[in-house]
């Protein structure tokens, strides 16, 4: 089922605008021989679906709560994905939708005719490929400005979404702001820049040697060995290292 798509920039000599290039999904060439692996869309009770033993995704509380609130507010609005797994005795086995299946319902399920190996590939890549999409801050901000789910987990999710996207794009945030500059000294000074090099000590010996050679004051961190569940870190000014190296 190969859908015909126009190649990029067809019919025009001018380069497409940035927004068109970043949203180029509608202007890419067709893939020859694209196979349709969907054999059926059917309603299936939760308990007739098997979890995939290879499922590697875990669902933290914040995600569960956001999903629950979305289901309560909107309802079922998407299909799960499953296949008959040879490895699982032919049982209808999930590729996508493990967390949703936890809710008892007759779920719409897209059933694929893929092999176990293909299912593994889908299991590994479906979410990460979706996660590779970048955000266009103006459109996202406009959407966020008019969307107020009013429940805690979804509000948290949208908060994080807006904050992250805007930090990445360095676009102006929604909210109250100004162009005034009452404190000009806040601006960057000439050549002001903050970069760092990470030096990884792979054992305690290296760590102690490093502190000694760098002339770092020995600090006794109050952590018994059994509670050392994170690595120690120190900071040293570049000028001090440059002096030591010269």
């Amino acid at each position, binding site marked *: 089922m190969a859908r015909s798509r126009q190649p990029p920039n067809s019919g025009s000599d001018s380069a497409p605008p940035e927004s068109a290039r970043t949203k180029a999904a509608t202007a890419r060439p067709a893939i020859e021989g694209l196979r349709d692996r969907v054999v059926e869309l059917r309603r299936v009770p939760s308990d007739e679906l098997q979890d995939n033993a290879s499922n590697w995704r875990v669902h933290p509380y914040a995600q569960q709560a956001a999903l629950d609130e979305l289901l309560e507010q909107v309802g079922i609005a998407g299909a799960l994905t499953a296949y008959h797994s040879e490895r699982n005795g032919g049982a209808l086995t999930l590729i996508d939708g493990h967390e949703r299946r936890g809710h008892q319902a007759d779920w719409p399920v897209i059933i694929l005719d893929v092999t176990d190996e293909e299912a593994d590939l889908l299991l590994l890549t479906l979410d990460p490929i979706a996660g590779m999409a970048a955000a266009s801050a103006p459109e996202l901000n406009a959407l966020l400005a008019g969307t107020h789910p009013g429940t805690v987990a979804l*509000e948290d999710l949208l908060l994080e979404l807006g904050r992250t996207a805007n930090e990445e794009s360095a676009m102006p945030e*929604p909210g109250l*702001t100004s162009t005034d500059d009452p*404190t000009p000294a*806040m601006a960057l000074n000439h050549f002001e820049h903050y970069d760092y090099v990470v030096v990884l000590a792979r054992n305690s010996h290296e760590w102690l040697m490093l502190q000694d050679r760098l002339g770092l004051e020995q600090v006794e961190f*109050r952590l018994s060995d059994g509670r050392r569940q*994170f690595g120690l870190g120190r900071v040293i000014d570049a000028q001090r290292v440059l002096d030591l190296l010269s």
Partner: protein
Amino acid sequence: MSVPDVRVICYSRGRSSSIAKNTLALFPYATVTVDEREVDAYSRVVPDEQLLPHPQFGQLSQIENWIHDQDLAEFVYIVADDIHTLRCIVGWRERTYRDPELIRGLFDVTAVCARDAGAYLFGFGHHMIPSYWHKDKPFCLNGYVREVYGFRRGHGLRGDQNVEQHYDVDIALQSLLRHRIIWRDDRWVFASQPLGSAAGGEAGIRTQDAVDEAAERMVAKWGKWVTVDAPRLVFTGGGRTAWGKARATVINVPRRYA
């Protein structure tokens, strides 16, 4: 070899019934400072040697200035009174901790790193969701810190009594102006109760008008260096309301860092 001179202070208001299971469970060594009128209530759950009455103040900034004036240690952490968990968001799955000794070790390490970096204000991240964590930016030098944050002796910062509701942002902007950077370790996040959901604290004081006015005052004070999106009261069903989270209170101060 020296042990970092760290003191943990929690200022609390109207939460004598919950502080033991939240903040004091995580920081049992913390000094709790309360209005002298509340000492009796708190003395039932806080050991006498850890209870520090402060004079009657109307604003958080006044309490914090009073704490600064006590000059308690080289590093003074101020912790909110409704903190219940420490989360590490590095990796595929967040890890949660409630081990007081581990947290004290983290405080030591963070304070020393901040000092060595030349920062006077330091703290931990805000993002709770691992997938939103920037793996290439474990530290932030130009944001603000909240809920759990520390000051290094000699910081010279004073809470502004005209700033009632964005105190954490205001103090960070002051520090950025005076010290150029702050030190925030974004790998770690302290979780507190959602805004206004826990009794006591600011819950009974906050109104929509006050929140909006506070946002306007911040922008008037700091101009383009801050963007404030004030939280809105939202309806949660059954006629109840709750504070939605503000989408973004962002410090726009440029400090290029890796």
